[in-house]
């Protein structure tokens, strides 16, 4: 298994986001507490993104993988039960904030 360093992961995420036309400004690391939009995610996905039941856990997800999933939901390229109906509202900056935040949380508390 290939282990990436944080800087590499950030770069990979940047490369993927850039390749689908997202602005680089949205990829800047965010300091401070999560935004309200980020906090909305945990209402379904569990405290800190750690799900107890059938809802997918998003804590600790690979940042680039998560960004691609959200971009695909937004574009209607990925099917799901709910996310396709929500992701259409996400701006590039929202996706960046969401993926940066949850990718940095340990999967298990």
């Amino acid at each position, binding site marked *: 298994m290939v*282990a*990436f*360093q*944080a800087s590499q*992961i950030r770069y990979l995420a940047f490369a993927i986001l850039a390749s689908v036309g997202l602005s680089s400004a949205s990829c800047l690391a965010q300091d*401070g*507490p*999560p*935004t*309200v*939009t980020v*906090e*909305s995610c*945990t*209402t*379904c*996905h*569990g*405290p*800190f993104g750690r*799900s*107890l*039941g*059938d*809802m997918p856990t998003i804590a*600790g997800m690979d940042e680039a993988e998560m960004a691609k999933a959200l971009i695909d939901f937004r574009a209607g390229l990925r099917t799901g*039960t*709910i996310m396709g*109906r*929500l992701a*259409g*509202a*996400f701006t590039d900056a*929202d996706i960046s904030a969401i993926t940066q*935040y949850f990718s*940095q*949380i*340990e999967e298990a*508390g």
Partner: protein
Amino acid sequence: MPRKLSRRQAFGLAGAALGTPMLAASARAQPTARVVVVGGGFGGVAAARTLRRLAPDIAVTLVVESPVFTTCPFSNTVIGGMRDLQSIQFSYDALQSTAIDIHVDKALGVETGGKRIRLASGESLTYDRAILSPGIDFRYDALPDIGPEVAEQLPHAWKAGAQTLLLRDQIRAMRQGGTIIIAPPDNPFRCPPGPYERASLIAHYLSRHNPTAKILIVDGKDKFSKQSLFQAAWDELYPGMITFIPFSEHAGLKSIDVGQRRIDTFFGSFDADVINLIPPQSAAKIVLDAGLAGTGYWCEIDGLTFESKVAEGVHVIGDAAIVGDMPKSGFSASTQGKACAHAVLALLRDNPPERALLMNTCYSLVGPDYGISVAGVYQSDTETNRLSSLPGTGGTSEAGNLPQLRQDEAAFARGWYANLTQELFGA
């Protein structure tokens, strides 16, 4: 691998910066501000916990009416015999360790001028900003010649707890082949798809224990949330058991014979064995008395900050408020609680509030393995701050014969409930 943030660091960056568990503002000499939150449900608890996590320097007080909260979401599963009441009840014990100052007391009044909240115990809490999430009360005066006392015989079960069990037990005791009337009000009211989920889960129970019984929905409106999905599911799961009678076919309730379990409408009469009378509703009395609803029944608020349009420093969230296009749901209330906590903090710090995306998903169970949903994304517009549905987003589950999707949505409904109640009431 990169070092990942622990739980405390992840959501409590301010607390993490102190290098210690978050200090209780009340334990410190001088909190920078006092915020009092009224209401121990989805909105109030979300607001209190979010604010506590974001701002250790602010004193956060939470006033709850009872030491145990019974959730309205999933209370229909209790009525349908799928869960017991204890499984939808939560204490505030875990919140004690978060340094939220919890008062189990009834908030009696809000003095918006003096910035004080009066409690039944006689105590008075002063605030710099108040967040009110008091829920609803019933408008029995809008029904013909009956008062709140009829709820002992014709349960509303629209505030969960003893009423939930009363309705469940009346249905269990009903004769074979009996009739249950569900009488929902016109809009707006708490949990728009709730009455129809209830009809579904009662039908689930009846199909096993009383298969010749019938359910009549004598509705205060002509259309309801997720109607085509519900009706398709009823035809599939409970054929012939549930009949929806829209307002236009009965023209409203004319009189109710409580003893005979009989409803007379302007166009005809309906006899029943059990009547679930869900009255028209208003914001809870405490906010009406404080003048926060003006001459109406619900509180008008600013969609960016949730601040009342009539009282400075008072924010209203959840079912008591008209929040643009957002429905009155536990999910909405918790989302608003988080957003309101951020907004209150921004205002206290003289920062601009975030114009966030607020999300809502209302799951309904039609059977134990049959779920449907309606979702929405809302944002305050830059001119009026009204929280409006964003075009091209939201909507209901796909229609059609999709058994795997229905099963997945039932599982996600349970998953959502487990996750949100853990986030609000868990350690």
